[in-house]
């Protein structure tokens, strides 16, 4: 790196790294540190190494790359950092410099950007899952094998249909909001999108799904591909520049965090917050089984939305929200982390599953597609009788008016 001219982004990341005074208040909040126990696998150690690489005190040796790569970028450290270190930014910038991406990875990340490719892959996957070919899964290897294992049952093509571009409010009109369909969400969790739309309509809002919207690029940013990430945000900025929209409502916390970090044409609000602030007319049917809430990192830490989901749940009559240890810790999904680092991701999830079992909940709610997949895979593997749902799915099932 010696002699390289420094870009403004490099300098910004370096200066952000200087905010760390090495106090260590973050270390125990790092899920990878809790498992591995080594300094270079906690935020303070990682900042220290990133700084050292930038300062050219050390070479980015394989161990450095590995421990930086092991970061979930859950940003739990930012929530407890008294000095306000922009950890996610420093990490994204560092990854953009250091991360090597192979052909499978490039194909996979590319697929997210193209709805058609994504749909073809989903169709292929559905065929595999339903045709009996799945008995051959022991022939798969590596990341492909893991992806196969984590993949939920791909819904029927009908259920993957794009959302209507417009949906009218139910009852009196209170406003108009825009919705992001998302990439993974649109093929695997279109039901969550429909439930989201339904809740917004029930709350009295017209919902628009702007043309030309695209994958938010959060996974690419996570992967250090900042160029793609910035390009996707720019595309979405144009697509969401539609008239008279009060807010862009997000139901995937990863996308929400990405959108919030950009200067979007309308305020970006998570569904839970939006319904707390604007859904006072909604009423819900009673639910009496114990429910636990697992905070998605990109909602809780990256967007600092720490209370709205729980507040909404208090409005469901009879609902018993049981405390769950580690509820604000990452579940190990972290984008495609569970595919890249299955062993560590599994250890992180195991600790969470223990906490889930201790909580006694029969329903677990969260708010992000990656978390849903991770939790469902874990719950199935352990054979727990716990239903894992997106908050929108649960609320749409309870809403009465």
């Amino acid at each position, binding site marked *: 790196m010696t002699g390289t001219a420094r870009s403004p982004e490099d300098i910004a990341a370096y200066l952000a790294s*200087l905010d760390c005074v090495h106090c260590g208040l973050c270390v*125990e909040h790092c899920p990878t540190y809790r498992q591995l*126990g080594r300094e*270079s696998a906690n935020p303070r150690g990682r900042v220290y*190494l990133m700084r050292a690489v930038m*300062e050219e*005190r050390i*070479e980015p040796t394989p161990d450095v790359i590995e421990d930086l790569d092991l970061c979930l970028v859950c940003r739990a450290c930012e929530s407890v950092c*008294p*000095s306000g270190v922009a950890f996610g930014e420093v990490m994204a910038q560092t990854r953009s410099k250091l991360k090597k991406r192979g052909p499978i990875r490039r194909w996979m990340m590319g697929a997210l950007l193209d709805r058609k490719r994504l749909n073809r892959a989903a169709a292929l996957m559905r065929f595999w899952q339903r045709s009996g070919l799945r008995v051959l899964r022991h022939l798969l290897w590596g990341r492909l094998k893991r992806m196969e294992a984590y993949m939920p049952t791909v819904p029927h093509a009908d259920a993957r249909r794009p959302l209507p571009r417009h949906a009218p409010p139910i009852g009196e009109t209170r406003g108009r909001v825009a919705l992001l369909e998302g990439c993974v969400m649109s093929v695997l969790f279109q039901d969550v999108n429909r439930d989201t739309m339904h809740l917004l309509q029930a709350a009295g809002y017209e919902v628009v799904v702007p043309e030309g919207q695209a994958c938010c690029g959060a996974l690419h940013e996570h992967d250090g591909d900042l160029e793609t990430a910035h390009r996707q945000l720019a595309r979405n900025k144009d697509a969401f520049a539609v008239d008279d929209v009060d807010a862009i409502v997000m139901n995937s916390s990863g996308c929400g965090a990405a959108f919030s970090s950009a200067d979007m044409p309308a305020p970006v609000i998570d569904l839970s917050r939006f319904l707390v602030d604007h859904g006072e007319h909604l009423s819900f049917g009673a639910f009496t089984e114990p429910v636990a809430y697992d905070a998605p990192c990109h909602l809780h830490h990256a967007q600092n939305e720490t209370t709205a989901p729980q507040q909404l749940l208090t409005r469901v009559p009879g609902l018993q929200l049981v405390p769950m240890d580690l509820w604000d810790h990452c579940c190990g999904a972290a984008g495609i982390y569970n595919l890249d680092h299955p062993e560590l991701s599994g250890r992180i999830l195991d600790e969470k599953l223990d906490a889930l079992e201790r909580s006694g909940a029969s329903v677990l709610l969260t708010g992000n597609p990656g978390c849903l997949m991770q939790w469902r895979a874990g719950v199935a593997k352990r054979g727990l009788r716990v239903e894992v749902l997106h908050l929108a799915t649960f609320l749409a099932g309870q809403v009465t008016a």
Partner: protein
Amino acid sequence: MAAQACIKELKRLLGDERCLAEPGRLLSYECDALTHFKSMPSAVVLPESTDEVQQVVRICARHEVPFTPRGAGTGLSGGAVPAEGGVLIECSRMRRVLEVDVENRIARVEPGVINAHLSQQVAEHGLAYAPDPSSQTVCTLGGNVAENSGGPHCLKHGATTNHILALRMVMPDGEVVELGTPVAGAAGLDLRGVVLGSEGTLGIVTEITCRLVPVPECIETLLAPFDSMGAACTAVSRIVAAGIIPAALEALDERTIAAVEASVYRAGYPDDAAAVILVELDGHPARVEAEREQIHAIFRDMGALSIETARDPEHAEQLWKGRKGAFGAMGRLAPDLYVQDAVVPRSKLPEVLPEIGRICDGLGLKLANVFHAGEGNLHPNISYDGRDAAEVEKVVQAGQQIIELCLSVGGVLSGEHGIGLEKQGFMKLMFSDDDLESMARVRAAFNPTGILNPGKILPTPRACVEVKPVHRLPGVDAS
């Protein structure tokens, strides 16, 4: 080479995940929360049992490679900085709570258990572990034992040493000993007592039996802003002199308040005060009430701008989180931070604090004060930029002058952070050669070869670690 042969054996014992020898991983261990002193280990091991610690120690001893224990690395005196080329024994994977005896109010834990986690785990029984260092959400009990850590609530409830009943420890030659006992009485020499606060130089603690206390029936948190630090300190002295021992009695100055309020720990401290006193009373409601009345009277008399009482436990927690996040929040003022930890007699606070301000003003340094006022335990925080060599020099000067000032009024070098590498040089200002000789002999009785955590506490003729220049971004000029 001894070190290489030693690492080979350690790798065989613990495997790659728990014996680290890669350059980047080692680099992250070159300092603790005091970043002035840096030195690289040749390996870091992460044992998971007393037995493994014992084997590690025996391997190191056989190869004559020095070793140093480490908890969460939140220490502020360099106690967990390895000897150059030594082995660092990281206790972060010894984190089991082994036993909670509710009736006798004791718990037996491994050294890597996080301070706050112990209280969380015993909360269902109405119990808590009392010492609460500011870093309690991350620091380990093993580290607390090594440093005899304090914390805001140590004023009434005592520091770590008052809450540790017994220890299991691996001696520097690998022998496992049991020190202290959970029962009362005082038979024999208090070896447990001398190990507490010995900064990991006498043995490696692998099991800790601690005292738990019932959660107080009633807790009341008061906040009083003042328009001068002098008035605030006088109020503190008067509370102490009146014989009231609150659970905690803390002070924060204007600059600290600003840093905290800009952070994720914003607590809603008043922004127009020169100083804020944070008091917590706990115990029986009638006692709390009696003490509250006395304190209110003193505050009013000293011209408190207002007296606020925490509305509910959440509000109280917010006030405390702000206090406990204050050190890290100083990162907002400048890239580097130097925290002092001297103690003065409490009656001297009103004269000492302004003098410290004058010292820093004279050198043109940015000073913030946040401290355990009820114990006279000062924490002048000097924010500076380590890239500026001249400023670093001034910080060193200020440190020395502050120490000399505190000693001149009957104070001591450290109230809770320890001596470590940071204050060895000052030990002779406080102790005679004979005093230090006794300490050296006590250390030698435990650690005769000096192989365990060398170079700490007692002054050494040569520096074992380097103060290295920091922060430079190649290709960009320092501005």
